[in-house]
């Protein structure tokens, strides 16, 4: 009989990483203040790790802990995403007052610098974002 524990953990790990990329970017772009979602993520992570501690089943405990720890990481990642937006390394949402402030400071951009294939439309790193030509999406 096949052991499916690894498969479940692989799915949990990949989805956690996916959410850590896509979901965190979305959450950071939508929230004017990143502190409330950070608190929610930290508490959710804590609860999931507590469930893991009291779960006799390795698969359930492992999935809860993997997701819980990744939620803690995501709380930290919200701060890093905010920093990326501020420095023009990730796209800013002009409808978000925090991002609008970064755009007004001149370092942020509404375009995603990573949304391109390697080798095309290279932007020189020393060129400030505000002096760049509008990037094509």
């Amino acid at each position, binding site marked *: 009989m096949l*052991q499916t524990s690894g498969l479940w953990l692989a799915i949990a790990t990949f989805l956690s990483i996916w959410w850590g990329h896509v979901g965190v970017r979305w959450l950071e772009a939508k929230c004017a203040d990143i502190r409330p979602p950070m608190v929610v993520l930290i508490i959710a992570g804590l609860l999931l790790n507590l469930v893991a501690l009291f779960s006799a089943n390795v698969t359930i405990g492992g999935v809860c802990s993997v997701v819980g720890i990744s939620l803690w990481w995501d709380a930290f990642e919200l701060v890093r995403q905010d920093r990326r937006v501020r420095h023009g390394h990730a796209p800013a949402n002009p409808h978000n007052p925090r991002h609008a402030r970064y755009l007004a400071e001149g370092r942020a951009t509404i375009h995603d610098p990573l949304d391109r294939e390697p080798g095309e439309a290279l932007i020189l*790193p020393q060129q400030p974002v505000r002096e760049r030509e509008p990037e094509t999406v």
Partner: protein
Amino acid sequence: MYWEGLAIGLFSLGIIGFGFFWVIRMEYYLGYLWWPYPLLFGIGIIVLSLFVADAGWSALLGVTGASFIWGATELKEQAVRAELGWFPRNPNPKPQPPFVEIIRRIKAPHL
């Protein structure tokens, strides 16, 4: 209390941290076109985990496999980051992966 679940969670944190390391190194020395190989390696590890009797070891293999699949999706973005000057760029020519012409026709995955 049962510590096995928490140990698996901490292991996932470590293996993802290792993922950041090997993705940067692999892109630097080999290039992003090698992305199908860690992807297939990750899928292979997950398939292997199905045949391990112990649930704990199977779980660790599953987490490891998923982290390699994620790493494969990061290689293209890492190449762009290096081009933008956010990471060191290797000026030396990079070795072409086996079946490079087929790989070029497939859009490299990313999250």
